[in-house]
């Protein structure tokens, strides 16, 4: 009996080991080229083009940034369109996307690259390299400007060839972030551990002034009244300051601060943007908030309350005013995007890539 038991057990163990090895040998080593797919989402010339690109930054040092594409009219959602259309990865920490002259430019911060892609097929048309830690790209006239998280300069490119044609040194400011143009003036926030908004003359590509604000100015936008709105995040998240963050309304024609809306100490507002008409300002501060451009005080009630969500990004569709809010959930799983109408009703909920961080509308 005893011998029998040991024999049976021995055979079982040998069987398990053999089956395990065979299964493992047969069912793995799929690493290799990513399968490539064809997409076609034409953009009619009659002004009815629609489609939202959702930029998901992924995790720092994972190389798992991704892009999703959403058609509001049909509710169709395509995830990982960059990898699927191009058979390659988007990179590490996708930061922003800008449409210009029929091309979508996606800035991938920690990969040090900008991809120019066809917004109808999602196929890469251009690859712009040679910049350290790029953050945003802005087109103005025949030039494109690229900011950087770590370099004390703004790179100037030829908007047609995308070849570098110059640099704008930003001495003392090693983090340049978002840009907005008013006439020939370009305003640039200096974000990381900084407190300055630079004023640059785009004709000469020189700094002609700066605006001192509270700690860590990050996003900015210009409304329909020619007012520059600048949002500082206070830097409390980085532990470097206890200064209360603020929202500024600035006369974009001369850079004069008109109004300072101060948040509570410890708040971390972010995601400033305006609607397509430039009449309403949106931002995140735990909840989603919005206010009229003429408002003299911060709103009392949020537009959308947080319910355990980590709202991370906002975008407002310039065509219909729908609001898109990105929820990072836990920063380590597929994020969620809520599409809201103007009254705050949720129209759709989308499961996208990790940490949706920016929206770009075709």
């Amino acid at each position, binding site marked *: 009996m005893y011998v029998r038991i040991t024999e049976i057990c021995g055979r079982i163990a040998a069987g398990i080991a053999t089956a395990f090895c065979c299964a493992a040998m047969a069912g793995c080593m799929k*690493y290799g080229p990513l399968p490539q797919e064809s997409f076609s989402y034409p953009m009619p010339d009659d002004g009815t083009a629609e489609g939202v690109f959702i930029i998901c930054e992924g995790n720092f*040092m994972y190389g798992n940034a991704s892009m999703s594409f959403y058609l509001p009219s049909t509710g169709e959602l395509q995830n990982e369109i960059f990898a699927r259309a191009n058979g390659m990865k988007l990179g590490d920490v996708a930061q922003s996307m800008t449409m210009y002259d029929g091309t979508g430019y996606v800035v991938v911060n920690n990969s040090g690259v900008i991809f120019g892609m066809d917004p109808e097929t999602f196929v890469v048309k251009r690859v712009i390299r040679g910049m350290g830690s790029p953050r945003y790209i802005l087109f103005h006239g025949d030039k494109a400007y690229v900011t950087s998280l770590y370099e004390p300069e703004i790179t100037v490119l030829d908007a047609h060839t995308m070849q570098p044609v110059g640099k704008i040194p930003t001495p003392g400011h090693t983090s340049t972030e978002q840009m907005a143009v008013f006439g020939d003036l370009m305003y640039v926030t200096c974000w990381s551990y900084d407190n300055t908004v630079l004023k640059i003359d785009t004709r000469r590509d020189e700094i002609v002034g700066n605006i001192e604000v509270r700690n860590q100015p990050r996003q900015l936008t210009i409304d329909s009244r020619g007012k520059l709105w600048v949002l500082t995040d206070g830097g409390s998240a980085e532990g470097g300051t206890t200064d209360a963050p603020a929202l500024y309304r600035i006369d974009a024609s001369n850079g004069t601060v008109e109004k300072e809306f101060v948040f509570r100490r410890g708040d971390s507002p972010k995601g400033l943007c305006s609607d397509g008409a430039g009449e309403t300002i949106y931002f995140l501060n735990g909840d989603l908030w919005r206010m009229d451009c003429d408002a003299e005080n911060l709103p009392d009630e949020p537009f959308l309350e947080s319910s355990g969500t980590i709202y991370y990004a906002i975008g407002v569709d310039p065509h219909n005013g729908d609001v898109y809010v990105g929820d990072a959930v836990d920063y*380590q799983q597929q994020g969620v995007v809520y599409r809201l109408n103007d009254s705050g009703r949720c129209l759709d909920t989308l499961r996208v890539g990790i940490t949706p961080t920016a929206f770009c509308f075709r």
Partner: protein
Amino acid sequence: MLRTAWFRRLAACVALAVLQPAAYRNAAASVVAHYRMPAVAMHSGLPATCGMISSHEMHGKDKIPPPDDTENMPEERIDSVTVVGARPMKDIGVQKTVIDGSVLSEDVTLSLGDMLAHATPAFVRSSGRGSMSSLSVRGTGSSHTRVVWNGMSMNSPLFGMMDLSYIPSYFIDGAALYYGASSVAAAGGGLGGALVLDTRPEDILGFGMRYIQGIASFRTFDEYLKLSYGNDRVRSETSLLVTTSRNDFPYRNYAKKDFVTDDYGNIVGWSYPVERNRNCDYRDIHLLQELYYDAGDAGRFDLSAWYMDSSRNLPLLSTDYSESNSSLSSQKEKTFRSVVRWEKYAGKNKLSAKAGYHYSDIRYTERTERAYGEGGHEVQIRSAWRNYITTLFGNAAWERGLGRKLYLAADISVLQHFVYTINDKPVRPVAQPVVFDDARTELSALVSARYRPVESVGIALNLRQEVIGTDGAPFIPSLQAEWTPGRGNITFKASAARNYRFPTLNDKHFAVEPIMPEVGFTYDVGIVFRNIRRERFAYDISLTAYDSRIRNWILWYPDKGGTQWLPTNIRLVRSFGAEAALNIEWRMGGDWRIALDGVFAWTRSLNMRKPINDNDNAVGKQLPYVPVWSGAVTGRLSWRQWRLVYKWDYYSERFTSTDNSATISGRILPYFMNCISVGYTLGTRFADFSFNFKVNNLFDEEYETEMSRPMPGRNYGLSIEITPRFASRR
């Protein structure tokens, strides 16, 4: 009389801890009689050699002295001393894997992490040589395994874990991995387990020397030198290991494409580029000094002092497009560890004491290097972490056997940590440096009793009380039991424990909200088939199933878009699974011998947190980077002076996201690996020469073990070992 004293100590060890019934003694003697290949002892606690009584000596002494007779034992000179204990009292119900010295010194190029990956069912997360290697036991995290070197904890008070890539397997003479509840006897806080490492004296008198030169692909060089001298009372061993590598292996990069553009910058063609691993060179220097002194009746004194100087660059991701402007990271570490041990047998008692000192200087730097036209060059430091850790250690222990049925032990340890950590961040002149200066005292006291009421049944109870600074005083109990019916080849085991792990100092300082200690409850059951013989075959099998629940699991999650990682408590993580280990030995006749060691694991480690919100898909999902299936097999074939070793391992798909989304970028694809080595030993009058040629990744597979970090294809290593003969005696 060193050897005599050694025998006395071992005999006492046998008497104290190997209270075995007569039936098992016969089995032990038969094991002794046949040749034993270097092998990993069974996961379930097969008695890996803790020394071994030579067969011809042992045959005349089949009667093991009772524990209370050690004083009157005759002193006899014998040659090599190896003990095959059948079922030591100390190992009642214990689930562990023992790796003996012959396996650890098999390959100079391997770290302890590499060894454990092949020899145990634990998962070792690593992205190759020169990169961090962390141990995950039974689905837990790397900080849930306590690593103990000569009795002193190696876990960082800042990071909680020990990077196993910093431990060359050649510097360890004995390693044992204790699983789950079985770890309580070795250390507290090991929610996954405990890895116990020792240095031990070689059994050689006179001068000894061993020199190994290893040359491998990607300009990798390993130089190992060991000098030793010993007489009857004193022994000195000095080991030096220097490893350097450019590590710039080529790989086809499927994350990128090389585009061909026209004059207008438009893409007209593409290919996947063949790139080289960048910023990945490393240099490690290890120096180990061991001193052993037998003071006769005063006991035995041992000193182990280990200095390490490591400089490693951290490779760029495969998704990195930087050219002249490179974003580079590096880590430099200088660590000194030293432990002094005293051990004495006094009547029925074994007494021991230890004192230790540890100092680490760890620097992590992120920098950007820019090249400007005419030789201009600028280096920008973006992050500069400096960590200084000083630890003082003390320990006293007592063991005693009471009759043949009861064994008692007590142990008390104290660790005093002083840490200072700072990030200068010079790239942001206005930024405030992140800095903290802290200290922590950790006291741990253990009493344990092992009781064998009848020959076939054993019960062990461990009660550990810890005091962690002013933060808490957890009580950690564990209970183990075993039953060995019939002829003694089958043992049933079971164990259970409640365990705690306190937040590390980094957990404490970086947490946004107060961080709570982790509380674990674990139990396992197992069966061991030991020394089953069928004609020329002999095999051992162990099967284990376990279940554990860890409340308040501390998880570092990426916040602020992943640029900042912060600790938080997860409500509950449940781990359960099964492990199997198999050792087969086939004596083919003549000089041919074959041995096969295999380990297999099925691991479920589930995140059972409270949902963050309605869209949280992580609840009930496997924790990131923990494989559900894994296995490793090592085959050894020897014929006279030739030997062939074949290693195979497999890891199933691993998810990198908490929701286990099967996206392109959300998982590490499964892979298997094959390595082969051929060795030959040439003995001459003056020296032994050993040659070893190894092929890693035999089938030149392309794979990743971490996101965006490709691994090298087929690569080669050649080593030559020279052991002069100085007329030494064993």
